[in-house]
């Protein structure tokens, strides 16, 4: 899963918190902040729950601009 969001002190915490609370395990995470103040996060996740619901739950976070499942990641990790 790839998430693009406005970066601030709590943006990554909020994202990871939603992922955990909604029943997904994080198997790996990569994050960086680009020159425009946007945080790019790649997550490998594992769960038996539907990922489309998680996408909408992450999409509710203030400052999240884009959430998508990358096929390579999804095929490995996301039900």
């Amino acid at each position, binding site marked *: 899963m790839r998430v693009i969001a406005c970066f601030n002190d*709590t943006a990554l915490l909020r994202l990871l918190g939603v992922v955990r609370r909604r029943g997904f395990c994080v198997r790996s995470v990569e994050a960086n902040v680009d020159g425009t103040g946007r945080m790019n996060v790649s997550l490998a996740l594992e769960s038996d729950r539907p990922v489309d619901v998680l996408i909408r739950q992450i999409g*509710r976070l203030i400052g999240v601009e884009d959430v998508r499942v990358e096929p390579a990641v999804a095929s490995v990790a996301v039900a």
Partner: protein
Amino acid sequence: MNGAELLIRCLENEGVRHIWGYPGGAIMPVYDALLGSSIRHYLTRHEQGAAFAAQGLARTTGKPGVCMATSGPGATNLVTGIADAMMDSVPMVAITGQVPSAMLGTDAFQEADVIGMTLPFVKHSWQLESADEIPEVVRDAFQIAGSGRPGPVLIDVPKDVQLALTTGEPLACDSRNDESAPDAVEVARARDLLWHSERPVIYAGGGVRIAGAWNELRAFAEATGAPVVHTLQGLGGVPGDHPQFVGMLGMHGSRAANMAVQESDLLIAVGARFDDRVTGKLDTFAPGASVIHMDVDAAELGKLRRPHASLKGCLRRSLAALAEPTQCAPWRARVDAWKTEHASRYDAPFDSIYAPRLLRDLCEAAPRDAYVCCDVGQHQMWVAQHWKFADPRRHLTSGGLGTMGFGLPAAIGVKTTHSDATVICVSGDGSIMMNIQELATLRRYGLGVKLLVIDNSALGMVRQWQELFFNGRESEVDLSDNPDFAEVARAFGIEAIGIDRADQVPDAIEAFLAAEGPVMLHARIDRAANVWPLVPPGASNSDMLEPTATATEPDERLEPQSV
């Protein structure tokens, strides 16, 4: 002007007239700035009371309620009220003082990471770094709290930010909200489902209240002719005495409501979220039904039950888009027959007070537009089952989090907001003790809240579950050493009436409703009284338990009598 003064000016600019809170060291500059402000501050006797009082305003007006506390324990004491607001989608702006920025992370006196501890249950939060941020943050806080699916936000203000000089000015309010229409393709799909349905049921939840959509819901129900069932938060969506209203569904729902849902071929979920207390065992819930799901929050669509048509957007517009006749008259007749057959009984032939009848009689005697704030437990379910609400903003109850102690401070918030209204708090002997200190707040401000305490000398709902599901092994539910609550009320300077017999109820209700100021009616009931019917936890809604004939309930084996 310093940051604290700017904060107050920004709150005034947002139209805030009431704040509930409790001062302390890290928020003293803000309390100093309150002096001379147009905002009236109400001092509760515990920060949790402040959070629930703010909910009293928010749940009845749709506008964000504001509560305030100091750092550390002040902030942690707000947390339950914030979580409660999140679970029930209540708009709230919580403001906390914080230790000075330079001391953050040093384990300073009364330092607590309130941003961290509330991350799971705020829509958003800010810890301010500069007084110049205040106008933008306050504007965004109110916009976010009140828009879309409402909820709480938190602004944490370090003391140095409160004291810093600033030239900032309040910004224009941002009242944008999601009024978007549902997708046309989904509307067409939903219309097709409605047209082909023979057994539709409207399952309406708290979203109807939040969206202010009860008139549209009623119009939709009357156009389609479909039976209506409500969740706990949805009660009043159509009036409790409306002929199409079948009852509350779910764990303590009516048998007719659960039967209708279980037998339906189309479930129209309106601002409802398929909560486990509603569905029972999820994969047996409405097993033969297609689902139309309307919600402003896309994340609710398909979360627990895949809809066949998803109408994301403004509920008022979604309901209006589907308000067309259906062909369900024979089905309505079946459901009406179930409703008659399984109507509540009030004819308990005993001397002791039968709580459902007490509540029904109080409902009939009270003004139709009275606000009723509940605590959590058996009394909460009895209110839901036996009070007929005129609209959903008249019923305040902690549904999602189920917080004992909600009722009294929520009633305080309602009464301060609607000073001319009749405001009744229904509590239990367990719940009232959770925030009983707020009797002092009632007295201080002379708030004419009417407080009914239904006292069974036990944690009744837990006791009932232990009786039914733990072989009667009672564990830590006995409250037989309760104080005399009427005497407690009098000690706070509040008028009180105590009763323990059914024949005392009529006069007590009359005196209770006639009281000018705050008043408590302390009603002792039988310890063994249970809430019926009941779907056992984890069971299907088709498997409701009914009462056995006991000393406390009407005998269901007898023919109903007119009472």
